[in-house]
């Protein structure tokens, strides 16, 4: 598979093997990830796929590994440490798992108090002899009570001897039924000795060995802070990313799996840039708690603000035109559409009432609910609109296929629609989270810049979204315009994410400020 080759060439084994604590000198601020924000190229996609584009401020470094890569990474580390400690690989593997793959710590403890370590890791002393099956005179298996001179038996160094059949059944139970691998103990009562891979190889059948390897790889990824499984269903890839848990307030590490899934390395939820993980968690909790209050607002039908006839939303676009009176308005704020896009109109910003109006407690609590609903409404709306955009795209795609056969347009020529649809999905995803983020932002100059970026992106998105509602026979004529609008949306998204990422990273006085209590 060529994606795997690519992966190996991007990340040398040294990078992967670099220990987690060895980069303390970086102070966790990822100074090597910093980018020039004034890069004039910002906003333009690299055409040449072979040239790796410069990383943008909101992008993090990561690598994707398939099962074979993960296996070989493990093996490399085992071999390396095995040579240092002078222990056989199967015992080294147990030791590495015992210290959660922290090589330095393992070597340190090993030099310091070898006996205690071997005991605790379930190895015990003297590891030289190879495991073997034996026939023992007068032996009675404690588990099955069978005896006889031809009974094959096995024991690890702890001396707890059982017949091969029982050992086999025991391991099958652990591996198959209980999903254990790295920490299977000797079947003897109260014995903490861990079954090593050499012994296991001798005892179990091939299919169990495969299962055992899969489970071991799983614990390897689970044990390492810089590795996570892609959460997409049935995806076998793991992502390697060096962003630390403690830096998640300053960076939002979105990673892109080979399977096509975009997710946050910090919390493994779907991509939620630009909002940091902790706010996302808070926001989702809040939405869950307040779902009943908020439900009415995200309903699919509303009344025309002018003639009050019922209007149903069936596309993603928020620019509504009443069928009856032709009044044009904004679905989100119900304001006049013609005013959107002018510098003084703010559909995205929540205007806090000042002075006397918000003085008494009741008014305050009403305002706090209004404030929440303002953001929730927009958050939910973009989520909903993304779905509707997709629906309408799928319908359009069908029509395009018909058009293709009737007008002779080639498949390549209709790809601009696909690109536009994907850009819309991605931008709406970002917009959605800008509203959750904005809910927690305190008001200052940077918040206003953030909201301006948000407004620009939103407008760009609505303009593109609107084009999908055009009749199919006009679409081919709109190709150039649509491609321009697609590029513009993408550009606005990059600008918003870059600005916000810079602000988050800088912290301190010149950054976006959260409302009090947002990060607790």
């Amino acid at each position, binding site marked *: 598979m060529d994606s795997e080759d690519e992966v190996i060439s991007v990340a040398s084994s040294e990078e992967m093997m670099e220990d987690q604590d060895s980069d303390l000198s970086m102070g966790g601020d990822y100074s090597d990830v910093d980018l020039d924000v004034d890069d004039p190229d910002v906003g333009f996609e690299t055409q040449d796929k072979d040239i790796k584009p410069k990383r943008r401020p909101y992008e993090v470094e990561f690598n994707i590994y398939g099962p074979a890569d993960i296996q070989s990474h493990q093996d490399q580390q085992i071999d390396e440490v095995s040579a240092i400690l002078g222990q056989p690989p199967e015992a080294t593997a147990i030791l590495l798992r015992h210290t959660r793959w922290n090589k330095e710590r393992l070597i340190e403890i090993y030099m310091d108090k070898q006996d205690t370590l071997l005991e605790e890791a379930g190895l015990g002393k003297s590891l030289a002899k190879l495991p073997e099956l034996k026939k023992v005179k007068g032996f009675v298996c404690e*588990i099955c009570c069978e005896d006889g001179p031809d009974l094959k038996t096995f024991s690890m160094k702890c001396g*707890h001897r*059982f017949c091969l059949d*029982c050992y086999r059944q*025991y391991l099958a*139970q652990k591996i198959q039924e209980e999903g254990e691998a790295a920490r299977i103990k000797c079947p003897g009562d109260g014995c903490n000795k861990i079954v090593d891979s050499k012994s296991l190889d001798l005892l179990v059948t091939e299919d169990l060995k495969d299962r055992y390897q899969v489970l071991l790889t799983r614990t390897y990824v689970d044990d390492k802070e810089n590795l996570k499984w892609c959460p997409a269903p049935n995806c076998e890839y793991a992502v390697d990313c060096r962003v630390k848990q403690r830096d998640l307030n300053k960076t939002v590490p979105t990673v892109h799996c080979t399977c096509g899934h975009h997710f946050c390395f910090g919390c493994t939820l779907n991509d939620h840039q630009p909002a940091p993980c902790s706010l996302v968690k808070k926001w989702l909790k809040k939405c869950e708690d307040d779902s009943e209050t908020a439900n009415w607002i995200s309903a699919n039908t509303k009344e025309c603000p002018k003639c009050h006839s019922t209007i149903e939303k069936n596309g993603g676009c928020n620019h509504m035109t009443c069928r009856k009176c032709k009044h044009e308005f904004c679905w989100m704020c119900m304001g006049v559409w013609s005013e959107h896009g002018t510098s003084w109109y703010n559909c995205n910003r929540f205007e806090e009432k000042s002075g006397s109006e918000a003085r008494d407690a009741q008014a305050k609590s009403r305002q706090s609910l209004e404030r929440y609903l303002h953001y929730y409404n927009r958050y939910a709306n973009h989520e909903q609109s993304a779905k509707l955009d997709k629906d309408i795209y799928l319908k359009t795609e069908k029509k395009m296929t018909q058009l293709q056969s009737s007008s002779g347009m080639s498949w390549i020529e209709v790809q601009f629609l696909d690109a536009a649809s994907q850009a819309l999905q991605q931008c709406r995803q970002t917009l959605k989270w800008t509203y959750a983020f904005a809910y927690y932002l305190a008001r200052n100059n940077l918040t206003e810049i953030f909201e301006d970026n948000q407004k620009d992106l939103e407008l760009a998105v609505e303009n593109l979204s609107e084009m999908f509602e055009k009749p199919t026979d006009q679409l081919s004529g709109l190709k150039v315009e649509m491609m321009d609008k697609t590029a513009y949306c993408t550009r606005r998204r990059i600008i918003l994410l870059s600005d916000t990422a810079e602000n988050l990273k800088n912290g301190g006085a010149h950054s976006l400020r959260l409302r009090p209590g947002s990060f607790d």
Partner: protein
Amino acid sequence: MALPKRIVKETERLMAEPVPGISAVPHEDNLRYFDVTVEGPSQSPYEGGIFKLELFLPDDYPMTPPKIRFLTKIYHPNIDKLGRICLDVLKSNWSPALQIRTILLSIQALLGAPNPDDPLANDVAQHWKENQNAAIQTAREWTQQYAKPQ
């Protein structure tokens, strides 16, 4: 299906050399199902009581532990209302080298040394931690009320 040698041997031994204070008798129609009684240990709030339990050996025994449940009502932080027991050797620390007799001994020992820090019955454990004397008193009363030999 023929009974595995292991179960036959264990049953024979339980009959021939019974553990003091404990009895386990298999049902005639199901040799994997045992009627069990355990005497409350002396100097415990369960002293003087005889507790009935049911014990079942699943198909994959001894690779998996026996299933055991108290039938007699008992006030104990590691035993819940349904009589289920929280005991490490019945879960993660089970070893196929353990036997019915060792498990029953562990259960008897648990009656002598309740562990409210690893509770199964949360309300009882809470009571035990907040007011141990009162909890022990309740356990005594329950023993008198439910576990008296007929």
